[in-house]
């Protein structure tokens, strides 16, 4: 058991280290996040200035914009997951015979990757916001502790969702359309461009029935102190629920896919 846990820890560290070699790519990602962040900030701050917008103030909206841009590298909503490629090339057969759990192994690597990306992409993004407009960030410790947990859960849900989605490759030749569909719907409902608090109530209800707000909006709300106390614990609990759901769906689909899989050659 001890050895088992060690494997996943090593995989997470490997994911962290691998990501640390692509510093130029991380910088490129940061620059893109910042450009989009400026556009997003310009529009949302103007909206805050012209009416009551979901209880946001200039400082709290700015915190939403720059923290959400900063988390983008870690949660990677692009719809891509390595497993998709491995199914197409047949490498997934090797994954199935490894003495580690396939889903957990990929999850560990992705958590490592996500953790590293917070350094070159998360922190600078928040700094940009702090310098340009100023952010409203909590002054007590609790939101940060809970916030870190919430970010980790968000990264996990994002990965587990993409993992399950990419398993569609067992049945469909080209999953690009499905991935694009997933990417746009998930980024929108996660509250990437407009916070979920600004959605009309029917749309907010739809969003909350999906795991997507738990990927981005919840971590942002918790760490910026927009949601505090019992309410914060409640939304983190909801994240745990979605971790369980996406995990189980992924496992069920992987099991079905394993039966379907045929590998040529040998």
């Amino acid at each position, binding site marked *: 058991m001890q050895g088992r846990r060690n494997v996943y820890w090593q995989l997470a560290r490997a994911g962290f280290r691998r990501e640390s070699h*692509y510093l*130029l*790519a991380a910088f*490129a*990602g940061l*620059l*893109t996040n910042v*450009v*989009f962040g*400026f*556009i997003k900030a*310009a*529009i*949302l701050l*103007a*909206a805050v200035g*012209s*009416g009551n*917008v*979901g209880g946001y103030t200039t400082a709290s909206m700015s915190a939403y914009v720059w923290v959400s841009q900063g988390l983008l590298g870690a949660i990677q909503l692009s719809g891509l997951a390595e497993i998709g490629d491995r199914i197409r090339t047949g490498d997934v057969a090797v994954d199935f015979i490894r003495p580690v759990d396939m889903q957990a192994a990929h999850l560990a690597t992705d958590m490592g990757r996500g953790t590293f990306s917070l350094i070159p992409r998360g922190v600078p993004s928040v700094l940009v916001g702090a310098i340009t407009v100023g952010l409203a960030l909590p002054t007590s410790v609790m939101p940060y502790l809970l916030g870190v947990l919430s970010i980790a859960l968000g990264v996990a849900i994002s990965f587990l969702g993409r993992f399950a989605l990419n398993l569609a490759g067992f049945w*469909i*030749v*080209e*999953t*690009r*359309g*499905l*991935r*694009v*569909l997933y990417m*746009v*719907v998930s*980024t*929108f409902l996660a509250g990437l*461009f*407009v916070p979920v608090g*600004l*959605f*009309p109530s029917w*749309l907010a209800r739809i969003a909350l029935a999906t795991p997507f707000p738990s990927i981005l909006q919840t971590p942002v709300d918790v760490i910026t102190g927009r949601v505090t106390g019992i309410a914060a614990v409640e939304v983190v609990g909801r994240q745990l629920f979605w971790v369980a759901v996406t995990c189980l769906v992924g496992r069920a689909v992987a099991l079905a896919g394993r039966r379907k899989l045929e590998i040529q050659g040998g």
Partner: protein
Amino acid sequence: MSRTRRRFDPYLAVISSRIRAQRSYPVSFRLDMLGALAVGVTEFAEVWVIFAKVGVLGGLNFHAILLVFGLSNLAFSSADMVAGHLDRIPEYIRQGTLDVFYLRPQSVLAQLMTSDFELRRVARIAFSGVILSFGFALGGIHWNVRVVALVVLTYACGVAIFAGIFVCAGSLQFFLINGAELTNSFTYGGSYAASQPASLFPNPLKLFFGYLAPVVFTGYLPTLAILRLPGPAGLPSWLAWCSPLAAAWVWILASGLWRLGIRHYQGGGG
């Protein structure tokens, strides 16, 4: 006539084979169409959610933003059809398959642009067209020759501007490693910026998207000119008529960068 036709025959053959290839996997093809449509729908939803909340933003009301979104997105999605696949250059460079394009007796850029024809992108063009029609119908526009001329000019130059931006982004891939995400900030970022009221932008963004990567010419400025609204400081609405200049600027930049790029390329070895 027959000589020019023969010149384009190879390109047409590639494009028609690409179309046939996409249609031979019906499930993937339908999902592709749906995905492309969803991109347009959610981009519009982002704009709509904010306007539903505040009514007027940056001097534009919802009907005006329909025009901004429709015009700019129609131009972007059309340009995406022609040149969007240039963002695959990093992949060609990494795999060394770009060398093949150099060997053929045709222009590398023309080959790359015609190397693919993604039918799914039609879905997004159609969606922008629908939004634009709503904008035309609801905007209270005084239709006359001036407005029609402006719309036609805007569309033609808008496609040229976005296609030129794609070529600039593609050229930079020769110098960057894994640089597609960097250039996304002015290709997809440009499209995002183009669909918003530019009057809200801080000055550096106004300068960047107004004059350097001049996407405000594709939606925001012409909307001001059509509705006879005044522009913000630095972006007067009569500038809308200067979109050919903006397109020319982008293409001067694009052809310069492209020439530098293909000369810089060292080949995949082997």
